[in-house]
């Protein structure tokens, strides 16, 4: 193994110290003890869902065991505790992304739900026939299909921001595409299919000057980058609990308060109203007007616990560690015969998408699974990326701070078994 260490500032100046820290982190994640086919699990599918530390699992169990009750309208102790825990999570998440107010933090069921909320509650109200929405060629379906639905129902046009061969946004063309009809620019902070980290600040700056609304899909950024929505300068930012070491069933939409105030809710029900009669219904304020019905109480509390867990880590250390994993993996997989990395942007999270000559990703996935190496294969819900590169699918290894160099070695060894079997050279 060849890794260089420049962490003197952090006091992490030996490989052993780094390994000790990671070993300690790994102890928090019970699933990492799992065996698959009698071999220790090598979980490299963090792009799909990240694993939960026991702090999160236990927070949820404790809530279920001691506090469970419906929120917001109860005067009894359990209900007050639940409400406090739920609203505390909102405060934690507000800080996690540095929003200026908890009124800008809307809990949803996930990134997909968040983006659909923007589509239904903002775009349907404010866009009109002939308007344009710019969407990049590297978006996840969650940031395409809602706009497609809108284009059908409201006759707006979707315009694609192209990407370069290395998998970066083509910013020149982006600028050329901007005209007075463009009302929304929807891009991901990080691409789940390529790993590219996009220059969001540059994009929002341009858009702000032109009064264009920016919708940023942060699903792949929320665990790996320090997200500061005020610095990013976006209007909306969406992500999911299960992508940041929290549970499924919950997500978040950040929206600038001025926008949230003028948007209409897209789901009606309890808790989002001030008063209801059959003649008139008065909606509550943001964020409540967008959280109709009983929210995902336990899950939101779990997501708060996840944000807290991440905040308690030495972020500088884990981010640079993830980058080391990326460097190491990029280097090692290049030894695998016939392997080509798809997505070679300069700024990437710790994620490698690749193809191997003559071997379909689905076969790679099956054989890797036999070796207990969990990767994702397929189009990663980003078919336009596949179309861009003229391939049906890739294999994707996506790392988290609990992964190790040894696990990368296990990946590479398993890949060599694939190329051996399929006689690739």
């Amino acid at each position, binding site marked *: 193994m060849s890794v260089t260490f420049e962490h003197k500032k952090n006091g992490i100046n030996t490989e052993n110290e780094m390994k000790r820290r990671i070993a300690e982190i790994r102890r928090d994640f019970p699933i990492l003890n799992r065996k698959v086919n009698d071999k220790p699990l090598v979980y490299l599918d963090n792009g799909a869902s990240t694993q939960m530390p026991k702090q999160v699992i236990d927070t949820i169990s404790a809530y279920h065991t001691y506090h469970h009750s419906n929120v917001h309208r109860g005067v009894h102790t359990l209900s007050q505790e639940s409400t406090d825990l739920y609203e505390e999570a909102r405060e934690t998440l507000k800080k996690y992304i540095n929003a200026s107010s908890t009124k800008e933090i809307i809990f949803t069921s996930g990134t997909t739900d968040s983006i659909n909320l923007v589509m239904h509650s903002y775009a349907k109200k404010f866009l009109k026939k002939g308007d344009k929405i710019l969407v990049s060629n590297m978006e996840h379906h969650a940031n395409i299909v809602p706009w497609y639905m809108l284009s059908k129902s409201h006759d707006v046009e979707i315009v694609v921001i192209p990407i370069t061969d290395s998998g970066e946004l083509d910013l020149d063309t982006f600028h050329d595409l901007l005209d007075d009809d463009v009302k929304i620019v929807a891009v991901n902070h990080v691409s789940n299919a390529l790993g590219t980290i996009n220059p969001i600040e540059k994009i929002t700056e341009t858009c702000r000057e032109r009064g264009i609304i920016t919708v940023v899909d942060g699903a792949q950024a929320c665990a790996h980058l320090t997200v500061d929505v005020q610095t990013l300068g976006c209007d909306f930012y969406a992500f999911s609990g299960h992508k940041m070491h929290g549970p499924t069933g919950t997500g978040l939409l950040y929206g600038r308060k001025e926008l949230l105030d003028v948007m209409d809710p897209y789901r009606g029900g309890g808790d989002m109203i001030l008063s209801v009669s059959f003649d008139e219904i008065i909606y509550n304020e943001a964020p409540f007007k967008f959280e109709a019905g009983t929210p995902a109480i336990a899950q939101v509390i779990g997501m708060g616990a996840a944000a807290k867990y991440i905040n308690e880590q030495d972020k500088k250390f884990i981010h640079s560690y993830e980058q080391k994993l990326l460097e190491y993996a990029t280097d090692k997989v290049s030894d695998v015969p016939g392997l080509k990395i798809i997505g070679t942007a300069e700024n990437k999270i710790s994620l490698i998408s690749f193809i191997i000559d003559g071997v379909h990703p689905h076969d790679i996935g099956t*054989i890797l699974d036999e070796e207990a190496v969990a990767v994702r294969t397929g189009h990663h819900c980003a078919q336009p990326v596949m179309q861009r590169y003229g391939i049906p699918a890739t294999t994707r290894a996506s790392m988290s701070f609990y992964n190790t160099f040894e696990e990368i070695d296990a990946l590479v060894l398993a890949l*060599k*078994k694939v190329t051996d079997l399929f006689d690739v050279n």
Partner: protein
Amino acid sequence: MMLTSRTKNLYQEVILDHNKKPRNYRVIDEPTHSAKGHNPLCGDRLDLYLTVSDDNVIQDVSFVGDGCAISKASASIMTTLLIGKSLEEAHEMFDGFHDLVTGKSEDDKALNNRLKVFAGVKDLPARVKCATLAWHTLNAALENKDEVTTE
């Protein structure tokens, strides 16, 4: 290099060979039947073409498409077995094959040996769809359906 027995069972020589050199991999210009198969799990697509005579005998069959080794080999082997067969025989073959890959029958004597190489699929339920895509597409073509998906 050590492979697990499941991997070895699944990726038998014959399968790897058909994957690399798929037989009847071509378009039939004026088929009597055709259909597109689609497995959304892997994004695979397969176009199947058939020429069936008036007395219900398969004269020619071919395919093109992208897919994993299992689905490609399955399509390729299927085409080699179908030429000259009656539709009834084709259906029977599918039934036997289906029972094999879903683990319903252990050792079907009647089943063509070339199909038996897919026995390993039954240990990997996620791959059953790959193995059967070509066959489902065949059914769709014969029923004059344009498209079929396995999900």
